[in-house]
């Protein structure tokens, strides 16, 4: 196969142009950082998942932070089992499979309810814990996190959680993980659903060591 000298020249010119533009759109205004961060770097992470069997426990019996015989404490439980999915992306790298579990606890007494514009919907401060297992690669990397936020009824009978997370610890590459960001859950059900229902989770934030 003969390759034209013009083709080679054009390919080299294109590569040179790509290097000069640093792979950015021509409108990029940013400059390369000329000040190195003093602290260990943090990395952008994005993770998302879908669960098919999220469930509320409004008795509090299976909730980690509800005391026995509590009348007003409940929790939302969700994970990636039974056909659920999970994806984890580290620093704009390739997506890797993720399994995960989340528990969000809340105390639903009158003093903690925050009214919304819908008479039948309220928001409640909530807190919980979770774990993510990054299953791609040669070893399993896991991270534990805590979260706080608000769990709210939507106007159409669904539930959302808007919170932030703090990385606790982990294993493998994330043994000393720290980090923060937002954690959002959208659940296609509510406390009245006795059967599991679909829900989705989204992490957007950072992870450091």
């Amino acid at each position, binding site marked *: 196969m003969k390759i*034209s000298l*013009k*083709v080679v020249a*054009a390919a080299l010119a*294109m590569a040179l*142009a790509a290097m000069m*533009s*640093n792979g*950015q*759109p*021509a*409108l*990029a*205004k*940013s*400059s*390369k*950082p*000329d*000040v190195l*961060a*003093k*602290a*260990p*770097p*943090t990395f*952008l992470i994005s993770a998302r998942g879908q669960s098919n069997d999220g469930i509320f426990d409004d008795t509090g019996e299976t909730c980690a*932070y509800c005391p026995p015989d509590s009348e007003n*404490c409940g929790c939302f439980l969700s994970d990636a089992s039974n056909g659920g999915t999970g994806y984890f992306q580290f620093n704009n790298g390739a997506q890797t499979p993720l399994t995960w579990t989340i528990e*969000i*606890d*809340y*105390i639903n007494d009158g*003093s903690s309810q*925050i009214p919304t514009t819908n008479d039948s919907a309220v928001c*409640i*401060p*909530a*807190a*919980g*814990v979770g774990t993510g297992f990054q299953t791609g690669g040669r070893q399993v990397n896991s991270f534990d996190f*805590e*979260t*706080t*936020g608000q769990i709210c009824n939507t106007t159409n009978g669904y539930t959302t959680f*808007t*919170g*932030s*997370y*703090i990385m*606790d610890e982990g294993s493998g590459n994330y043994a000393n993980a*720290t*980090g*923060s*960001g*937002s*954690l959002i859950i959208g659940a296609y059900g509510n406390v009245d659903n006795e059967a599991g229902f679909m829900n989705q989770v989204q992490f957007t*934030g*950072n992870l*450091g060591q």
Partner: protein
Amino acid sequence: MLNRIKLLFLATGLLLMVVGVKPVIAKVKADDSSVAPSSSTLARGTSVDGYWSDDAYSWNGWITNGCSFCTGDPSCQCFYSDSTNGSGIFQVNINQYTTMIWSQELDYSTYGLTTSGSLWNACYPASGEGEIDDIGGSAANTLTYATTGQLCVTPDGQNQTYTGSYIIDGGTGLYPDYQGAGTIGDAIYGRLPSEVVSQIQFNGNIVPPAPSPSPLPTPSPWAAVATPTP
């Protein structure tokens, strides 16, 4: 013939890379009354010397004003953090990230506490403000913002997270009077005493200021409803 087609194809690709591939709609020239498209913004940082403060009574009965937005109210407390000896990363769209210097104050009212969901731990309504300076290593590039949200103690009782939203209320340099909004997530490791390690994460957007007068209506819930004139 084939080589000419290849050459034409590669030349076209080179041209597209140089000018930047943009959606067709982006080529429409904006008139003075149009609103510029917003850009996504990601920023994150670490702080190693955050500290808590409050408006406390001193020995002589005076109230020490330790928080900017507390007005002599001991039930109001605050958390300060910045990137001194920490780090800051700022990114617009998918451009190369740059560094930034940042500082933030979060004031919260212990009077307004609610249970966090884990017993004995609380959430507090919170608000504050912050600065993002020296973006890209240039002191000219700055942004300021205000934030509101909720500060909660996590289930283990040792850490806190802040879940809030921000609104950009000022900017200079590359971002003169820019506007924008998004979410803030703070992670605060440990409680008093000071030297608290914390992290901050912004996810949002940024946009040049809207033309003046703003085409956007300003809602005012306190405004009297206009009575139609017959």
